[in-house]
């Protein structure tokens, strides 16, 4: 894979945890940004980025190549990762 998948998550969100667990279980290396742990300025910047990409502020957001998956969706993850 050209770029590592990127996950935007909230530490309190159980769907984000499920997505991360799914990637871990399938031994997929990914970068994770825990948005609620960022300082205010960085958080605003990342939230704007997410809104621009997805049109909303829902979590988790997973970026795999050109694919953007919003919410925990194992079928979409499998398809995008060719698992």
């Amino acid at each position: 894979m050209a770029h590592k998948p990127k996950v935007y998550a909230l530490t309190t969100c159980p769907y984000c945890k499920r997505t991360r667990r799914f990637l871990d279980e399938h031994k997929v290396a990914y970068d994770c940004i825990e948005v609620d742990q960022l300082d205010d300025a960085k958080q605003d910047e990342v939230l704007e980025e997410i809104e621009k990409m997805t049109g909303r502020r829902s979590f988790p957001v997973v970026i795999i190549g050109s694919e953007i998956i919003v919410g925990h969706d194992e079928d979409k993850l499998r398809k995008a990762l060719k698992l």
Partner: protein
Amino acid sequence: MTIHGEARVYCPVCQARFKFAPGWKEGDEVICPICGQKLTLRLTGSEWIGERPEKGAETEIRERVDEYARLKGYVFNDMKEELLEGLIAKNRRFGDFYCPCRMEHVPEFMCPCKPTRGGDVERSGKCYCGLFWKGR
């Protein structure tokens, strides 16, 4: 406080005022009919205020979501425990039981959040984070 001559009780969770029922007195424990929070009645000046008896405790949020579901006829699914863990983590990190799936830590997103109290479950079948589901 009275609205059109009717005594009301202020709920600090949903920030609304509900009707004071006949027979209630200072120190009574009541359930807010709007959000399900357990409150102890206190008379402050001329205003009735509901005090959160176990503010921030795990039992507080567990009782609140159970009471709210009972009041509205909503049900839970297998995500309930994980979502409660998220609510408890929000309280630990951000000072109250805000929706675990939102970034905003403002009173309107304290569980049950304002959109939920405004009928989101009736319209969409579930609340934003999927804690409350419309029963059959």
